[in-house]
């Protein structure tokens, strides 16, 4: 009975839990992601960066929030597969569930994968820099990431991207996808001159109630930021997060089309 003094029990439980968690964490290899997890069969085996279509959590996932696994991408050094969680149109988490292993690859993956994960979250797209010294892994990562991103978009939206390309120096005006947000649709039209973003405007933005005021406030700022950045990597306008996120998505799709 005396053994069950409350303080003693608290100390014991805390010590046991903390040391248990630390033990588990330290037992996990710090190296590259293990290739133990396969969510689908990889058909065929050939060299080069061939993509193998993989039916995991497929498209049609609502853009609101989803965890999506990309294709398995074969590289010279091994398979790469990326899993992302997308919420509110943004990548909030990126992990490599497969990465090259064995020999030097272990250290390279351990070095490169966290960097790539961070870049993916920061950029919100597959347009990220390769990690030097891990070029193949980086390229495979970007491809798998892109395939995961494709699955998160509403079916058909990205497929319909028109790819009109003419004289690259002539000004071209391209309209992005309509992106649904909690408060209404957002659609962005951009003008690209000589490969540079020279004008951005929202042709649709949330309206009605408070949205009118927010849109009036946020859209000009977003237009200005888009032109200044020359990309969809722009900050959200505070107080208009959903509109901003929708704007960025539509802008990205417009830029994708303009870039050919």
């Amino acid at each position, binding site marked *: 009975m005396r053994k069950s003094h409350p303080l003693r029990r608290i100390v014991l439980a805390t010590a046991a839990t903390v040391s248990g968690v630390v033990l588990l*964490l330290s037992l996990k290899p710090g190296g590259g992601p293990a290739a133990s997890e396969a969510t689908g069969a990889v058909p065929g085996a050939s060299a080069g960066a061939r993509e193998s279509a993989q039916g995991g959590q497929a498209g049609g996932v609502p853009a609101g*929030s989803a965890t999506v*696994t990309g294709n398995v991408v074969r590289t010279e050094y091994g398979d790469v597969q990326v899993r992302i969680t997308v919420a509110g149109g943004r990548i909030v988490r990126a992990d490599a569930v497969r990465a090259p292993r064995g020999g030097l690859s272990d250290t390279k993956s351990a070095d490169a994968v966290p960097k790539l994960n961070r870049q993916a979250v920061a950029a919100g797209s597959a347009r990220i820099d390769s990690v030097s010294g891990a070029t193949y892994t980086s390229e495979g990562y970007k491809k798998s990431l892109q395939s995961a991103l494709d699955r998160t978009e509403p079916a058909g939206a990205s497929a319909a991207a028109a790819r009109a390309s003419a004289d690259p120096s002539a000004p071209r005006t391209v309209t992005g996808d309509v992106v649904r947000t909690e408060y209404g649709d957002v659609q962005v039209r951009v003008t690209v001159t000589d490969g540079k973003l020279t004008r951005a405007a929202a042709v649709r933005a949330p309206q009605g109630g408070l949205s009118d005021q927010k849109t009036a406030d946020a859209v000009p700022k977003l237009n200005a930021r888009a032109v200044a950045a020359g990309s969809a990597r722009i900050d959200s306008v505070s107080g208009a997060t959903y509109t901003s996120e929708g704007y960025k998505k539509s802008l990205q799709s417009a830029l994708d089309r303009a870039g050919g």
Partner: protein
Amino acid sequence: MTTTLAGGRAARRQTMRRIRPRRSPAVPLLLVVWAGAAAVLWLWWHNTPSIADDTARIVNAGRITGLLAGYLMALVVLQMARVPALERRVGSDRVARWHAMSGRYTLSLVVAHVFLTMWGYARQAGRPLSGLVTQTVESVEQLPGMTKAAVGTGLLVLIGLSSVGPVRRRLPYDTWYHVHLLTYAAVFLTFWHQVAAGNDFAVEPVATTFWYALYGGVTALVLWYRVLVPVRLNLRHRLRVEAVIEETPGIVSVLIRGRRLHRMGAEAGHFFRWRFLAPGMRFSSHPYSLSAAPRPEMLRITVKAIGDHSAGLRALTPGTRVWAEGPYGALTAQRRSRGKVLLVAGGVGITPMRALFETLPGAAGDITLLYRANTTQDLALWSELAAIATERGARLMYAVNSPEGERPDISAENLRRKVPDIERHDVFLCGPPGFAQSVFEALRDAGVPARRIHQESFEM
């Protein structure tokens, strides 16, 4: 001479045949619980390919604590589902203590999970530790199921605070109880972010199925044993107050009449949670032990008027409807493993002892009751006890304060002197916590093994 000896032996054999000790399922149950925890940790292990840096370590510590908290949350609710195997075989008091202990632990895990996960995400997003609040707000806005989870976590913290010793003592029991009922809402609200945002459930459909099965199973048990079983019991037995009798100043007995009460499965030593449908009493239910062996038409409880509720019992009018849930409790004849039994009662703790004194199988001289009270006036039910003792040839002793107010000395030596073969007895013990503690220690010193001291205590 020989005949009495033979007669004694035959009687002893007969008694032993009627004792069927049942093992408490506590140990196998705890093993299952630990195995489940191990499976949950394995799930994390299996789904985590590697950990690259400190940020990943923090995020993963958050995941581990989150998974364990989600698992234990289901068990904390299960402990209060009034499952008969827990209430009657392990013992309501013990399960309630498990519940309090694991509840505190689970809440600590929840807090650790929230802190670690948000810290890890903040680091991933390149925020300093001071950006924790911003990160939390952003995650609640963006991640699936997180708004609900945030509300649920808030509720859990509120419930936790209301159960902290000093707060709990100041709150009226009913308020505390109704705040505690919010646990169901909190568990429901926090469940969804586990399966929607949980890393391990995103990649492992089997784990999601298991999680739904765990929570679904617990929900089913709660509905069954906390709602359907009591409704059926009360529809079937139609309990009403028959009479209220003042036993001693401050102690009343309530006689409750009902139909076919022998079908309730109640035994001496059991208690029910009683709700009297009288003004001011219908919103709270209280556990009181049966103070006599249940009869087909009648049950009796004996209660000391200490709280508002127990004081209100005195004013009950015959015919008042009664809502009962039970029977619960493990302090019954099933616990017994030996032929000889010593019952020790302190104050109103006499109630289950009185019922056991009447019904425990035993030959003359096998059963002894030691009754502790402040004065001889406080020895409630004494005349009944004396009658039972005479009829059964059982021993009845009491210990009261001396006229000067000096407490009787219940020590190992005194116990051994009064009950010479005390180490060969099963001891049933019921009384106020301080009394139970000191008697327990005296009994241990007198050579009674702890496993043969059976007690019930609702103090946490």
